[in-house]
């Protein structure tokens, strides 16, 4: 009895000492992390502040919170930046790319994970090697190729979407295939016994059960396309077809000194991403960590 009491007392003392040490250490941790958090968030706060100031106020107070909040910058930026058009375009690029990527990537990944037709290993090797080819190696000939197609009347937007889908193909196949391989095949066999055909097995069993994989690919590809600049700059030359990024680039160039206006424009671009990010933090972070290891 006493022995046990003694031990537990010793334990308690030790525990207290340890927890005091721990909490002291954690104060240091929190201090460091708060500093880094400020580094990440303050530039964004300044942007948000400036988007609701007048240019006059920005001149006197370029970094601090606004004294008078004005909201005119947003409709101004929306109109002058042609956001009604470019937002629509960007949404088309994002949605069409995700849709094509998931349909064709899903089909290919299913075939590679489950059917393993002869040549599968060679195909995986092809995608592995191809995924290391830098864009810079093929952008000039691709430009020539795309221009030839544009000249015979193919819509430039469709061509850009094709480039996005192809560029993301290796990542999509690797990710979806790994999700499908992890799926126990008994479920699919059971469905086949019940008379389901291949297509039904895919749509009724495999896709619902590998939904997290599809969501990950959708998020990674969608965010990439929304933010994409270089390919859109290279292949889209009609202002009516600009996505938000290249359009904003020209917009900032034109209204260089109008900080209130360009800040509001920047807020408009990141707003949809922020909403989605805050709603799906875990999926975003894990998805990008998993799938973001790409160029």
């Amino acid at each position, binding site marked *: 009895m006493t022995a046990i009491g003694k031990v537990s007392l010793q334990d308690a003392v030790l525990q207290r000492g340890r927890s005091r040490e721990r909490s002291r250490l*954690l104060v240091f*941790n*929190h201090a*460091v*992390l708060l500093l*880094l*958090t400020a*580094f*990440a968030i303050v*530039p*964004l706060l300044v942007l948000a502040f400036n988007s609701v100031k007048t240019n006059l106020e*920005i001149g006197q107070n*370029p*970094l601090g919170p606004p004294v008078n909040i004005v909201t005119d910058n947003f409709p101004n930026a929306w109109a002058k930046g042609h956001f009604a058009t470019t937002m629509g375009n960007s949404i088309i690029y994002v949605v069409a790319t995700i849709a094509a990527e998931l349909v*064709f990537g899903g*089909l*290919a990944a*299913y*075939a*590679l994970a489950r*059917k393993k037709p*002869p040549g599968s290993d060679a*195909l995986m090797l092809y995608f592995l090697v191809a995924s*290391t*080819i*830098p864009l*810079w*190696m*093929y952008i*000039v*000939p*691709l430009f*020539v*190729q795309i221009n030839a197609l544009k000249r015979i009347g193919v819509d430039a937007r469709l061509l850009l979407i094709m480039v996005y*889908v*192809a560029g993301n*193909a290796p990542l999509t*196949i690797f990710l979806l295939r790994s999700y499908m391989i992890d799926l126990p095949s008994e479920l699919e066999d059971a469905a086949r016994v019940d008379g389901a055909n*291949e297509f039904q097995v895919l749509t009724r069993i495999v896709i619902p059960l590998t939904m997290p994989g599809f969501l990950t690919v959708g998020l990674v590809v969608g*965010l990439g396309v*929304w*933010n994409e*600049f*270089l390919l859109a700059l*290279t292949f889209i030359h009609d202002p009516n077809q600009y996505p938000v*990024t*290249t359009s904003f680039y020209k917009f*900032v160039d034109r209204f260089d000194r109008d*900080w209130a206006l360009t800040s509001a424009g*920047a807020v408009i*671009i*990141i707003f949809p991403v922020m909403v989605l*990010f*805050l709603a799906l933090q875990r999926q*975003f*972070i*894990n998805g*990008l960590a998993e799938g973001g*290891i790409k*160029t």
Partner: protein
Amino acid sequence: MAVLTQKKPTTILEKLNDETWRRKFIRNVLIPWLFIAPLLILHIYVVTVPAVQGIYMSMTDWKGVGRNANFIGLENYRELFFEDETFGKALGNNIIWMIFFLTVPFILALFAATMLSQIKRGGMIYRSILFIPYVLASVVTITIWKNLLNPQRGIGAALDKMLGLEGAFGIAYLGRPESALMSIAFIDNWHFWGFLMILFLAAMQAIPPVLYDAAKIDGANRWQEFRHVTLPGIRPVVLFMFMMVAIWSFLAFDYIFLSTQGGPGGASEVIATLLYKNAFFRFEAGYGAAMGVVISIFAGFIIMIFVTLRRRGWDI
């Protein structure tokens, strides 16, 4: 019954006439390949064919328009490495860029991930906020930082005002040759390092806690814990990211093009911006293609180093 008595088909003709074989072929070969075909064909058309064309194009003097392309062998490469001083400067800047990105974000990310991994409560909030810059578009990030680094209205000017100085910190960071490249690297890193931290954090959380307990029993201090438990545990991720970041350093484009276009006077020029200008502004398609091949060779070389190290038994 009929199936049982049939002999197994051997020749192609017999196979094609055999109902069972045909059905098997359709099911196990034809349909799977039909599933794969759309994406594969698209990928070959968009990536592989132009990549091969790029190699050929790099050996011509093609201007990007018209049909007058002459095969000139390795002339473009000779010019790149032995004549074109802007290319030499750009290559040097890529290497500086690589050194920066192989150190600064890695140290920041390792440090922050270590701090974060020891926290039980509130970790998710830190994680999310530190990750936010990574989801921003490059055009937005550059706009934010162009304003913050503005000599009259930016952080530098505010600092000068606070300290009663004149033009000490309020300088045109992006406009001066000696600071342009490092300023852009700083901006890109602001956007990038959180991503690295998330990867390291995930790897740290996968380390069995038993190892830390064992280290504590052995009397390890925090540094020894980090050195002998954490670091070996996340080593594969760190080394893999070393490889990726080294490759990415040769592809860098967006932040430089958007902020300075390689200026002032080539001070922040990298191969990719030089390539872009040559191919799309100056109509030197062949010369630009040669730079693309050079970038790919560097990337391939970095991959080879890592593959070789792995073959030698490194745990990568």
